[in-house]
């Protein structure tokens, strides 16, 4: 009963197993978010030939390289425009963007806000590890005020985006936030986002022990403890009232889901009558 097994992992069919073990560091939360995403995609029961995963650059952006579906590893910040093109050219596809906070909200921030404004029918999963993990733990647009990073040695003078509020203000029609510990809720939200028609955004908090963790003297499991102890689950919360504060609490839940015409609907109604 103990130890080494010869059986296959239930997600092996969804993975490019020849590339596993992946490059993510021990304790990096990206793998857990990726795993939840794969469970959600595989449980949708849709044709794998009609599902594609697009990533940008960063540790999180490596996701596209491990999924056993059509996938694209685009340039830094450009996952959303690439995914937009795919979706418009081939509306039958379910297009999932899996990328990091730096990729989606710093260099790629403009693409995010405009895709949300247009209600482009995409599912965007953002692994928020509060920094640029891949390049050495620099401050990002999501780094908490006063947190230490390799570019903010005395503490971050800036404050972070509230990503669910940003997404809501821009026009996203499905918005959720979880941590990598809330695997079941997370998987459920990704599944719902995949079936939702319109721009869906899921923020997932996940530790980067090598970058953010090391600079802020957080051990491998310390950030997870914060996620566990500070979680305040409030489904349907007003995005303007959601908080992400390591002391006061972290609001989690499915915050927003409503319908309005997508970009493709509007494009058709203007141009194809």
């Amino acid at each position, binding site marked *: *009963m*103990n*130890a*080494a*097994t010869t*059986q296959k*992992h*239930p*997600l*092996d069919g969804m*993975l490019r197993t020849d590339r*596993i*073990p*992946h490059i*993510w*560091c*021990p*304790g*990096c*939360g*990206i*793998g*857990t978010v*990726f*795993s*939840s995403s794969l*469970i959600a995609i595989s449980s949708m029961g849709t044709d794998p030939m009609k599902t594609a995963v697009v990533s940008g650059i960063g540790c999180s952006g490596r996701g596209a390289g491990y999924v056993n579906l059509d996938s694209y590893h685009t340039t830094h910040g450009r996952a959303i425009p690439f995914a937009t093109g795919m979706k418009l050219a081939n509306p039958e596809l379910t297009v999932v963007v899996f990328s990091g906070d730096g990729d989606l909200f710093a260099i790629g921030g403009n693409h995010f806000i405009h895709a949300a404004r247009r209600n482009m029918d995409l599912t965007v999963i953002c692994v928020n590890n509060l920094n640029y993990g891949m390049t050495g733990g620099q401050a990002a647009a999501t780094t908490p005020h006063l947190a230490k990073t390799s570019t903010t040695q005395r503490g971050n003078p800036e404050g972070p985006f509230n990503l669910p509020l940003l997404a809501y203000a821009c026009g996203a029609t499905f918005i959720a936030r979880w941590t*990598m*510990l809330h*695997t*079941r809720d997370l*998987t459920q939200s990704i599944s719902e986002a995949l079936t939702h028609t319109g721009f869906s955004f899921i923020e997932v908090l996940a530790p980067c022990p090598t970058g953010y963790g090391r600079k802020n003297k957080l051990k*491998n*499991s310390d950030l*997870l403890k914060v996620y566990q102890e500070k979680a305040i689950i409030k489904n349907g919360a007003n995005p303007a009232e959601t908080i992400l504060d390591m002391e006061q609490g972290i609001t989690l839940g499915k915050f927003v889901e409503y319908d309005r015409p997508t970009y493709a609907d509007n494009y058709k109604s203007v141009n194809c009558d």
Partner: protein
Amino acid sequence: MKFWRVPLDSDEIVITRGVVHIIEDRCKGCGYCIDYCPRDVLEASSRFNSKGYHPPAVKQPDLCVNCHYCEAVCPDFAIFSVEAPAQPI
């Protein structure tokens, strides 16, 4: 499993039991499966895998309830549970 009072319908209840499997060479030794297993099934081991990490060991196999949480939380696709044949309590 211990009960403070044996349920009256104990002959009808079946408790899901699981068998946990570890793909040792994928493990990076983060310990999340050990920390977050609700039944304290797993423990740290001093053995090394081929990459030099310490994979978990199964300490109390009979306590596994096949909740799949270790499987879900593992960032490395290195552990999973399967249902054990049902047993009446």
